[in-house]
């Protein structure tokens, strides 16, 4: 391990540099700061609730499009009911697809309010219900039309295929099916990330090819209705947000900051710190604890985008990320040569001091999960005793950047604990066997736990157990911050 007591790349502190502030405790009294954070937290959760309600309402509006269309109050016959149920299923499904697009669009408001990882978790939870609704849409309409025309489902399907725009709609349904099936946990685990990603990009095509049949075959969105205007506007909004924040903004950021690799430093077996140089990196607006989606433009790595946390707060012309070789793609990162051009999407994430709502700070990190925790510690205004850090590693090799954290803890007057050893086998726990026996708990490590913001970052299964213990100990939900390392 290379001993870097301090990140070697950091420029000399300038006036107003975070480093300087970290050294001098903030003038704001603790209780005032806590009140300010609680207010900000309440505001954020109000916005979050509002956005959630908006998603509900958008689904209700989708149903309303049908309700407000003529004939919806006079549905008759089994065929009629099947048909109209199918129409409603299609409208709600499409609305939810648009909600999913917005959730995946990395809209700054959503990232600041929920964190992109939570947005993606919601996005993911919608995938299967939407697919069921779409399949129901197709099945109900086929049966409904068939019942009205006294034809069987197969004959009706053939008839539908000869209706204009319907072949495209079936194509869209097939694409959605492929996208959702490829995202099922069991399937996704077996697919290379790139294969999954390419299939996932097909969802844009699916959304687009599904549109013509809604406008031409259905009667709810017929010419000259307000329903048609609303529907097209919803499409424009969702796809516009994707185009803007998913594609245009990263290009602008990449070309504005012109980031290049200046050095690759192995810090442990399989772990490298990548030192980056660029223009005005402090104006990226990266907060400690945030991550970016990085792409290294070399012949062997350009096709793989890596979501990686900043392992230090970016300075004006330098930044650093630290990566462990989790997959084939990240293993190649160790062989990147200096000078490689880097594109960046981000920074994203709510694993920052901005998310705090409580007076004290409790940080728990394991393995490579240390990187955002280290940057967060660096980027937080701390009074002596305000923060407590618990580092967790299974052996001596896993102590990446621990000395840097120790250094930061010393500078800020934070308590630092380490727990080294494999997880206990005797029960489901995030601790070592020895510490379980000694009676260590979250409360014993963090005496002020209930008045602390708990930040947890590490392998998913491990950090879930920490969070479970925190909930059992009675830590309110808004004080628990968990970084999920998933795209």
């Amino acid at each position, binding site marked *: 391990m290379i001993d870097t007591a301090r990140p070697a790349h950091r420029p000399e502190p300038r006036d107003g540099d975070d480093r300087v502030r970290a050294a001098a405790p903030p003038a704001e009294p603790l209780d005032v700061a806590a009140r300010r954070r609680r207010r900000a937290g309440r505001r954020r959760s109000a916005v979050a609730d509002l956005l959630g309600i908006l998603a509900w309402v958008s689904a209700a509006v989708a149903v309303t499009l049908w309700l407000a269309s003529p004939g919806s109050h006079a549905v008759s016959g089994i065929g009629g009911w099947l048909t109209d149920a199918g129409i409603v299923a299609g409208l709600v499904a499409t609305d939810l697809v648009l909600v999913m697009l917005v959730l995946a669009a990395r809209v700054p408001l959503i990232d600041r309010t929920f964190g992109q990882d939570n947005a993606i978790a919601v996005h993911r939870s919608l995938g299967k219900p939407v697919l069921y609704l779409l399949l129901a849409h197709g099945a109900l309409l086929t049966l*409904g039309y068939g019942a009205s025309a006294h034809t069987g489902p197969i004959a009706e399907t053939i008839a539908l295929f000869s209706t204009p725009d319907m072949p495209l709609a079936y194509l869209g349904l097939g694409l959605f099916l492929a996208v959702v099936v490829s995202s099922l946990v069991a399937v996704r685990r077996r697919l290379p990330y790139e294969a999954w990603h390419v299939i996932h990009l097909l969802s844009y095509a699916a959304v687009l090819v599904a549109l013509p049949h809604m406008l031409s075959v259905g009667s709810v969105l017929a010419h000259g209705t307000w329903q048609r205007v609303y529907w097209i506007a919803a499409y424009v909004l969702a796809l516009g947000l994707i185009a803007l924040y998913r594609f245009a903004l990263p290009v602008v950021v990449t070309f504005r900051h012109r980031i290049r690799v200046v050095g690759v430093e192995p810090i442990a077996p399989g772990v490298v710190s990548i030192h980056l140089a660029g223009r005005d990196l402090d104006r990226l607006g990266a907060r400690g604890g945030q991550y970016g989606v990085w792409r290294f433009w070399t012949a062997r790595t350009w096709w793989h985008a890596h979501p990686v946390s900043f392992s230090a707060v970016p300075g004006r012309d330098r930044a650093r990320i630290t990566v462990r070789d989790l997959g084939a793609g990240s293993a190649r990162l160790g062989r990147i040569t200096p000078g490689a051009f880097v594109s960046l999407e981000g920074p994203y994430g709510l694993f920052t001091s901005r998310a705090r709502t409580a007076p004290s700070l409790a940080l728990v990190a394991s393995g490579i999960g240390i990187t955002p925790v280290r940057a967060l510690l660096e980027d937080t205004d701390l009074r002596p005793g305000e923060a407590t850090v618990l580092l967790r590693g299974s052996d001596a090799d896993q102590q990446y950047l621990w000395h840097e954290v120790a250094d930061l803890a010393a500078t800020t007057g934070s308590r630092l604990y380490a727990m080294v050893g494999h997880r206990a086998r005797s029960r489901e726990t995030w601790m070592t066997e020895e510490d379980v026996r000694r009676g260590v708990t979250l409360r014993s490590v963090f005496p002020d736990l209930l008045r602390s913001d708990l930040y947890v970052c590490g392998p998913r299964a491990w950090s879930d157990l920490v969070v479970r213990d925190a909930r059992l100990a009675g830590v309110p939900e808004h004080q628990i911050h968990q970084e999920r390392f998933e795209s």
Partner: protein
Amino acid sequence: MRARVVAGGVVSSIAVLVIGWQLGGQPAVTAPAQQSTTSGSGTTGTGTGTSGSGSTGTSGSGSTGTSGSGSTGTGTSGNAAGGSSASGTFAGDTAQTQYGPVQVQITVANGKITDVTALQLTDQGGRSVQISQQAAPILRQEALQAQSAQIQSVSGATYTSEGYTTSLQSAIDKAGL
């Protein structure tokens, strides 16, 4: 998801749905306004009957619609008792439906409807073209059998059926059957 979001979402969704319910559900077909009776004067050979020109009317359940564009029928309509000796073709008024206008024309020989031709059928949306093409032959058959507009509507083609019978009735009125 937090309870507040679910509660707020459910409440506001219900509000939106209620508003939607209030907005919607206008009847499918606006019936043509009462026509002034056909003229079809003369007792012999050929005559030209012109029905009342377009009129605007408000139908029963609160929706406004324009219907009954002027139509002409050629033929004779005997004004003898029963009026059963009419011959010729008579176009019905155009009935407006949500899915487009519907207009039919009847061919009458000696007071008997011998053919019903659809001049216009619902055509808004690919699906509704499909529906009206399925429904039209059935409706025609029913009309020929019933010799009146008192026919069953085709299920799944409610709007087409209603428009069809409405236009058919006005054509029959014009023929004086």
